[in-house]
């Protein structure tokens, strides 16, 4: 149709789509799904890091971790608001999450088991997220693009802090170094999976690329992450977590091994180490908080009607 052609023209000319612009239903649905998932990930992502807040080893580390988790909740809020510009409410998105009908990033279905994991999450998980999000700064939907620009700044800060935290561990006592290695070994492949399946197996990719909802392919982004991370591992003096990692002079990139895609599919389907516990923690928070939300709403209404009566 005419509308569709005009829409695609804008996209091809890198003109952002704004909330009031006409857009195809599928574009809208795809964006809601992607932004919703992203928002859910920020919210659920509080849990694995929150798991160590009460055990942070110094006041400084506790403060850094609190600030980080606070930022993540803030990102969640920001992304839900951006999704709301497409006509989907936060409550509805949360309901879909709790009913298991929307996902969050699978990485958060892995546990944080030692203190070095907190560094590793910042370094590897936020690092991988940033690779994704930097690309998404150029995404075609205006509010999403602007959210990404803002979020990326904070995420880079987190990634740097995470790297410093794991550096302390890697350069610390033998036991601390062992923790750092253990964290790297456990989180490496899950971080690799954050970029999604191979391009050849990625279902939504083609249309998303045409709409510039996606800007780079999964495999491109994964390679970029590997290339930037291997030198950091080497700097830390840690063993490489994958025996297949090797510099490929010809490609000008690192070669690396495939994560276990069966495990990836398992986790996606709900069968990950923490899926059940994560979702039930979120549902419990929501259910336990119902009286609070109801109470505050009732009070706001009383105040509003008192104000009307007084006028």
């Amino acid at each position, binding site marked *: 149709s005419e509308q569709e052609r005009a829409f695609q023209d804008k996209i091809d000319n890198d003109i952002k789509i704004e909330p009031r612009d006409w857009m195809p239903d599928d574009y809208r649905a795809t964006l809601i799904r992607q932004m919703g998932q992203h928002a859910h990930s920020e919210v659920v992502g509080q849990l694995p890091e929150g798991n160590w807040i009460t055990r942070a080893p110094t006041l400084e580390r506790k403060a850094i971790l609190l600030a980080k988790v606070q930022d993540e909740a803030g990102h969640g809020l920001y992304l839900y608001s951006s999704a709301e510009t497409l006509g989907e409410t936060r409550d509805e998105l949360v309901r879909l999450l709790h009913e298991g009908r929307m996902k969050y990033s699978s990485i958060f279905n892995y546990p944080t088991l030692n203190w070095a994991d907190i560094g590793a999450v910042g370094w590897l998980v936020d690092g991988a997220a940033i690779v994704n999000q930097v690309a998404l700064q150029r995404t075609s939907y205006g509010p999403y693009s602007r959210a990404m620009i803002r979020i990326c700044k904070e995420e880079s800060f987190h990634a740097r802090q995470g790297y410093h935290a794991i550096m302390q*561990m890697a350069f610390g006592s033998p036991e601390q170094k062992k923790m750092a290695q253990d964290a790297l070994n456990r989180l490496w492949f899950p971080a690799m999976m954050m970029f999604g399946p191979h391009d050849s197996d990625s279902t939504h990719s083609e249309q998303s690329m045409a709409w510039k909802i996606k800007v780079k392919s999964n495999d491109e982004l994964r390679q970029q992450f590997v290339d930037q991370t291997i030198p950091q591992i080497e700097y830390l003096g840690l063993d490489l977590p994958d025996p297949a990692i090797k510099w490929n002079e010809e490609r000008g990139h690192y070669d690396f091994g495939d994560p276990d895609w069966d495990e990836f599919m398992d986790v996606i389907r709900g069968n990950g180490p923490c899926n059940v516990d994560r979702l039930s923690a979120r549902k419990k928070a929501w259910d336990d908080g119902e009286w609070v939300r109801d109470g505050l709403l009732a009070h706001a209404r009383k105040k509003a009607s008192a104000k009307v009566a007084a006028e």
Partner: protein
Amino acid sequence: MTATITKEDALLQFLLRMGDNTLILGHRVSEWCGHSPILEEDIALANTALDLIGQTQMWLGLAGEVQGEGKSADDLAFLRDAWDFRNVLLTEVPNGDFGRTMMRQFLFDAWHSIILGRLIKSSDARVAEIAAKASKEAAYHLERSGDTVVGLGDGTEESHARMQDALDYLWPYVGEMFACDAADSEMAAAGIAPDPSGLRDEFDALVGRVLTDATLTIPSSKWAHSGGRDGRMHTEHLGHLLTQMQWLQRAYPGCKW
């Protein structure tokens, strides 16, 4: 008992009390991370905890200096056992539901903002400096926790009942904040900190106003728990809190983090 305590010792006690209050309450608040009723509260609670931990760094840092044994704020936070903590018991009671957490926060914030207001004029410049920074944060915390107490107290029937329960449970922990012992007298005499008992009227007026708006009733019993700020008898809860808080420092002593 009259003062057989040196000014140095009294100052150390005072600083530990300030720093342990913010440390333990900050820890409790941080337990909510990711589990609060609504995303905005996750953010607000993390922010409150963050402020409190930041204040802890300042108070315990100064306490370590005054003590003169070369201990850092971290040493004091992570390597003392329960009996050496000087926080009021109010800060260590478990979170309970969100209502109890916010009521505890409000009662603490009210006291905290009042005492910090006085401490800005402390004769000890280091104390005055910390208070100047902390009092801004405390004022903000008080505004928030007060609003929440009013909103939930004067909300639904259920939220009202829960807030009244919270107040009934926590009220006996209020009195300890206004206790005065030899260390306090010494601090008051030196113009470093106010006599806590002198803050009670202002507290009662402030809290009374907010709780009236919240349609809540202050329990009539005058009895008050004690034993936290002098370390004589903490609650059983503190020991459990410390097992978590101090785990890494205890299990891997002498490391840099």
